């Protein structure tokens, strides 16, 4: 009997080979971004202008900001379906309160942040401690927040978003609009958490093999609160930012962002089965979806076509991801 000490090797012998292989889907998604961009330029030369690129980046920010939370939820085997309503709710609440208390915008934002954290905690506690499946928990939460918003606004909104917010969002600092700086901040936080913190490692472990994570000493239940809190906070931030950017707050503003956030995560190569994926991929996903939107507009196709596109992208990207992971 011979001892088997040799490992089964595949691919190149360099460490880089491993890195490339594991992150292939992310590279692939950036390739898709490039291809879509080129398609846009081919259709209309103005597409490639710096102005347009900045515009596209701004559009993508909203998906990007809420995408971090959704990435973390999907990474740990769940999903957050309440995002559209934390998004809309934060915007509307900020708008109404800021108008009632004219000079207290920072306090209003703080309150909205607190409420978002509360929503995230409730979602997280339901999922982590009561064992409720994330789809149902966040679906129910979505209904609750929607109901509260409808009651609060009486079904229609009649106040204008605070000008100060709009000004800040569109103001530029060191050449980039503050809006984009927020995304940069989220990006840094996302990469930081996933690559450099014990929290990030724990989340990957939980998503890959919850039983093993628990036996390795990770406090799974407490850790599971984090993705949902971040998702709720991200959702709220996204809504407030969109309101500042467009100068509008209305009850259906969050609707497209549910499919968008899930699709962005899927495009980024995250396996919907949990345990794989990275926010860098979601960023690419946000660009892919934004470019798709822009292309659809170029071809004169409206919002309905966007939803169809999101759905098709979501299911194909998710399918490709499972193919990749079942190859091992």
């Amino acid at each position, binding site marked *: 009997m011979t*001892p088997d000490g040799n*490992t089964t090797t595949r691919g190149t012998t360099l460490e880089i080979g*491993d890195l490339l292989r594991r992150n292939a889907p992310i590279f692939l998604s950036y390739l898709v971004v490039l291809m879509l961009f080129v398609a846009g330029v081919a259709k209309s030369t103005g597409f490639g202008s710096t102005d347009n690129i900045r515009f596209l980046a701004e559009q993508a920010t909203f998906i990007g900001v809420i995408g971090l939370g959704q990435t973390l939820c999907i990474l740990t085997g769940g999903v957050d379906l309440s995002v559209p309503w934390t998004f809309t709710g934060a915007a509307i609440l900020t708008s109404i309160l800021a108008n009632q208390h004219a000079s207290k915008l920072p306090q209003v934002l703080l309150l909205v942040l607190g409420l978002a954290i509360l929503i995230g905690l409730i979602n997280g506690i339901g999922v982590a401690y009561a064992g409720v499946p994330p789809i149902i928990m966040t679906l129910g939460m979505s209904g609750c927040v929607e109901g509260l918003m409808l009651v609060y606004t009486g079904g229609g909104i009649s106040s204008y978003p605070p000008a100060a917010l709009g000004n800040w969002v569109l103001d530029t600092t060191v050449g980039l609009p503050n809006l984009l700086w927020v995304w940069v901040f989220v990006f840094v936080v996302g990469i930081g958490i996933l690559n*450099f*913190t*014990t929290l990030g490692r724990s989340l990957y472990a939980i998503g890959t093999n919850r039983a093993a994570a628990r036996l390795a000493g990770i406090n799974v239940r407490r850790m599971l609160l984090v993705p949902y809190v971040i998702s709720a906070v991200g959702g709220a931030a996204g809504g407030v930012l969109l309101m500042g950017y467009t100068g509008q707050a209305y009850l259906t503003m969050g609707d497209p962002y549910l499919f968008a956030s899930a699709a962005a995560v899927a495009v980024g190569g995250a396996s919907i089965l949990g345990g794989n994926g990275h926010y860098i991929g979601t960023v690419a996903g946000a660009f892919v979806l934004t470019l798709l939107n822009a292309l659809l507009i170029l071809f004169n196709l409206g919002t309905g076509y966007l939803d169809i596109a999101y759905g098709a992208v979501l299911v194909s990207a998710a399918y490709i991801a499972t193919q990749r992971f079942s190859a091992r």
Partner: protein
Amino acid sequence: MGETEQLTEAEQSTSARSPDLALVNIHKSFGGVRALVGATVECYRGEVHGCIGENGAGKSTLIKILSGALHADAGEITLGGRLLHVRSPHDARKAGIRTVFQELSLIPHLSVAQNLFYGAEPDVRLGRISVRSLRAAARKVLAEYGFPGISPDLVVSRLQLADRQILEIIKALISKPEVLVLDEATSALLPKQVEWLFKTVREFASEGGIAFFISHRLAEVEALCDRVTVLRNGEDVGHGLMTEMPEDRLVELMLGRRIERLYPHSEPAGRVRDEVVVALEHFGAPPRLHDVSMEVRRGQIVGIGGLAGQGQSELLLALYGARRSYGQMTLNGRQVHLRSPSQALASGIALVPEDRASEGLCLSLSVRENLALGNLHTISRGPLISPRREQRLVRSSVNSLHIRLRSPRQEASSLSGGNQQKVLLGRVLASDPSLLLLYDATRGVDIGTKTDIYQLMHDQCEQGVAILFYSTDASELANMADEVLVLHDGTIRARLSGAELTEEQIVAAAVGGGKQATRA
């Protein structure tokens, strides 16, 4: 090659007739581990054929191949002289083979009647099953087989494990199979139910069926079977009529001659200190651990033996805070009640779990990430992971355990079983435990890695670590442990040490004979 038993005259005359069911020269490997190396079993109609061997001998692999759940790498199966191509459970069923697995196949949310007759309900019109006739048919069958008490409408998940096992057996029988395979079918049965099983199986054989009974309960095989094959290390080392195989010959064949060099030599007197690391008093953990009192000292290796399912898993998991427990537990002199693995780790207890794939490693993560997993607080400063400390941890684990890999960044799933186990051990040891719990740590691992693990265990003990390990391998227990506690029915049936600590005594105590516990 193992020794094969010489054929007696009686045997020669029977085997002049060709076997009705033959598995010939079956080979099967999983990665680097060779489960079957040319095993041959020959069964005859009208006989109950027993297959015995220790855990890891290859019995369950053989069964899985026969029932289509696995493919053999080489070898052939013939039934009634015809060559069988069993590529799936469906093929096996079509060929008339019914297997009662240890892992039951009853569907938890369906009723007794629905499970019994699935696919062959008595009265089906337009796709609709007549509940009344189903119930009546089930009642009839249950009464026929001697179990009128089980209600046909009861949802299976509400049945006791023993009743479920009986149901599984009845389910296999009512389809009138040609071959009935029973894999550890008595593991959950009470003595009266075991008698029922024997009677039923004998009837089946006498009506012309071929019964194949796998067990490591020697007493049962002796009582039930007409013919027996002994497996060891993946091959058949002896076969013959039951009447011509005395018990001690069977035990000798099962255990064989071990390579003594496999186990490192170590003087317990030198390394076992007086200091007690963990002491348990009337400790229990539901559902199967009832009352255990024991202690482990610094530098000592205590082994846990016994048949599977007697509470060993509950014991180790409860000590690690991963299961609820009751009773008293004293750790380094202080009374503790551990409620979570993270608490246990913080108190210096570490566990290598049973199934490295499903409970130990995160296989799609890299080796580096797996090694870091249980030790996040030691390689981090605050919330941030320090790459340098992580690097140091990885390097020291890989070196001290001789883990063969291309790069720490490669995926854990791409390592061999033995190396994966080493990664798990590395992670566990990096937390510097004072009590190391090992659950079947050498299962599914090649010889070379086993030797390394044994050496590692001794090294740890030299440094004062206390080790409590559960193994299904009696030889391992006999050679590695200073003291072995054999569990049965949630309590300690025998405490073996010194001269009494032999493989035979361990096996005997596990199956019910041998020396009983004389100390409380």
